């Protein structure tokens, strides 16, 4: 095939994604696209997301139809300069279509998973990419490494990106000890040490934001920068009802109403999301872990954490990203930051900025690293 013809493939957003459906082509056949332009809306069994173009040229051919179930790695469109003859595009499209229909699609390499042991606890992680620059993603309360599904792949372009499961979460050990910020920060630093990572950019969401801040203060030499996404421990407000509701729910029926607080768009709370969270909550030890960490986060109905003094102490680049419609930790909390003007407010995003508006976060993280 002519090297100038670039394949657009179904992305792999997270470990469990095996196929996706295009719900809308944002770019039509014949239109010009640039690197980073939105190409298509894609629905997975978890959540809907937007696929960005990784190439520039003309969208010469759409291979996969709207609502067709397409395996990860299969060609869904062809991008090429306008001067590539139609006959060559036709041939490439025919081959791609044949491959799609035969089901003989080679699955794109997904994240590689592994575990390290820190302070006697097994910690799970998923790694994508192999660049010299290292980024570590740290989720929030009740989350896990899969919550970065939309941002890990684009960030891995030229970098090594690890998504970590904190103690008590995902596939890591469920024992959180005293559940303190220091214990959790120790887990992140222990992970870096075990993996032989001398220096990394840390990205933390919510509780993870407070954790990476504490890690940066404890071992400044290992941390190149901080990106805090709706961080806990900043400002006076917290949705204590959400946190307690999440910790205490014992069935999907109890859990689902609370999950609406996570997103600006309530349609993001899918059955699959609630099911996955219930599967996590049913694991032995999770109930205790969540209750212990609730004590780390809350003092009555007020936040128990304050990382603003730590941030003031940290001598490294700090970027803060916040959703305009955050109903768990409101964006007004950003006023308490040492430099409130440095906050990137993402319009139309709730607490789960990295799931709802992943491109905005990818842009911020990539911008800073250039």
């Amino acid at each position, binding site marked *: 095939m002519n090297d100038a013809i670039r394949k657009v493939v179904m992305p792999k957003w997270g470990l*469990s994604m095996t196929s996706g459906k295009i719900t809308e082509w944002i770019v039509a056949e014949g239109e010009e696209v640039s690197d980073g332009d939105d190409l298509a809306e894609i629905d997975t069994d978890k959540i809907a997301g937007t696929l960005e173009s990784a190439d520039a040229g003309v969208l010469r051919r759409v291979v996969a139809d709207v609502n067709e179930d397409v395996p990860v790695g299969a060609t869904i469109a062809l991008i090429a300069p306008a001067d590539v003859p139609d006959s060559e595009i036709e041939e490439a499209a025919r081959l791609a279509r044949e491959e799609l229909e035969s089901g003989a699609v080679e699955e794109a390499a997904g994240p590689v*998973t592994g575990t390290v042991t820190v302070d006697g606890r097994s910690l*799970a992680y998923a790694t994508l990419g192999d660049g010299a620059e290292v980024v570590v993603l740290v989720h929030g309360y009740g989350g896990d490494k899969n919550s970065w599904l939309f941002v890990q792949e684009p960030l891995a372009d030229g970098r090594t990106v690890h998504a970590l499961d904190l103690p008590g979460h995902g*596939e890591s050990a*469920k024992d959180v000890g005293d559940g303190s910020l220091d214990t959790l920060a120790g887990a992140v630093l222990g992970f870096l040490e075990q993996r032989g990572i001398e220096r990394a950019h840390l990205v933390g969401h919510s509780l993870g934001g407070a954790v990476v801040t504490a890690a940066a203060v404890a071992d400044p030499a290992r941390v190149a920068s901080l990106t805090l996404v709706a961080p806990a421990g900043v400002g006076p407000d917290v949705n204590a009802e959400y946190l307690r509701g999440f910790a205490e729910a*014992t*069935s*999907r*029926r109890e859990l689902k109403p609370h999950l609406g607080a996570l997103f600006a768009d309530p349609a993001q709370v899918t*059955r699959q999301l609630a099911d996955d969270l219930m*599967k996590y909550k*049913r*694991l*032995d*030890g999770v109930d205790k872990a969540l209750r212990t960490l609730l004590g780390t986060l809350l003092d009555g109905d007020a936040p128990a954490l304050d990382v603003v003094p730590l941030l003031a102490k940290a001598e490294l680049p700090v970027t803060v990203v916040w959703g305009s419609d955050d109903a768990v930790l409101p964006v007004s909390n950003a006023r308490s930051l040492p430099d409130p003007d440095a906050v990137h407010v993402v319009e139309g995003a709730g607490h789960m900025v990295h799931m709802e508006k992943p491109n905005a976060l990818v842009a911020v993280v990539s911008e800073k690293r250039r």
Partner: protein
Amino acid sequence: MARTISYREALNEALAQEMERDESVIVLGEDNAGGAGSPGEDDAWGGVLGVTKGLYHRFPGRVLDTPISESAFVGAAIGAATRGLRPVAELMFIDFMGVCFDQIFNQAAKFRYMFGGKAETPVVIRTMYGAGLRAAAQHSQALYPIFTHIPGLKVVVPSSPYEAKGLMIQSIRDSDPVIFCEHKAMYDTTGDVPEDSYTIPFGEANVVRDGDDVTVVAIGRMVSVAEEAARELSTSGIEVEIIDPRTTSPLDEETILESVENTGRLVVVDEATPRCNLATDISALVAKEAFGSLRAPIEMVTAPHTPVPFSDALEDLYIPDAQRVANAVKSVAGWTR
């Protein structure tokens, strides 16, 4: 982490993890230890279809072989449970429960009630049910409705490897007698199952699939049959909501009723014969509690009221399949007065 394992492996892992966690858990039944030490056989057979394989050597003295006398060993398991052990007894085929029924329904099921709440009987009776293995009329029945009928018993009918592991661990930790019904044609089905221990609470139905047109309640192996039908129906524009009750006793009535209140249409799929089975029970529940929401008569897809045939051709016709479920769904979806 989650990996893909079989229904059989999921059950085996649940038993092993609970035996590891709690010394009072023991396993007993026919051929659970049998075969160990015989020529060419290092391990025990692990029961007739190998569910307990590997446990005999791993937990010395806690995997017991029993005589071919269900009334004796099921009674022994129940007695041991009253004295502090947590026995998991394997009643090879559910069809054999006739010979130990007094121990189950007159003894185990009644102790808590008759001793003023002071007696606990944390016994699990694992048993195989269901047609499809050409095992004829005495080894193929779906008799869980009989246990469901009896107050004091909890009845579990898991529909996938994930469900099997979590429900087995819950069964072992539960302090009442549990009848755990494994479909013998499902042992080699596979699915994602976490390595860690986890529990699935009793009396909480699983909504397997969301849909607004017709509610399908399916039991045990019938859940995957309903899913197959739902995929086909979706292409013709009918969206089915599938509910797996997980436990027939206690039954999650609320989830079923809520779904029917939304769809207005109900199909119940049950492999058991049609008199007094789960299909009739759930249909009666919905007719009584959600009558005002119903927009069509309720349909039941069940086995016919006959013994399970030995003839391959007839047995295949006996078991409800996706086509019959799809036809029932279409008939309620298209019903007009």
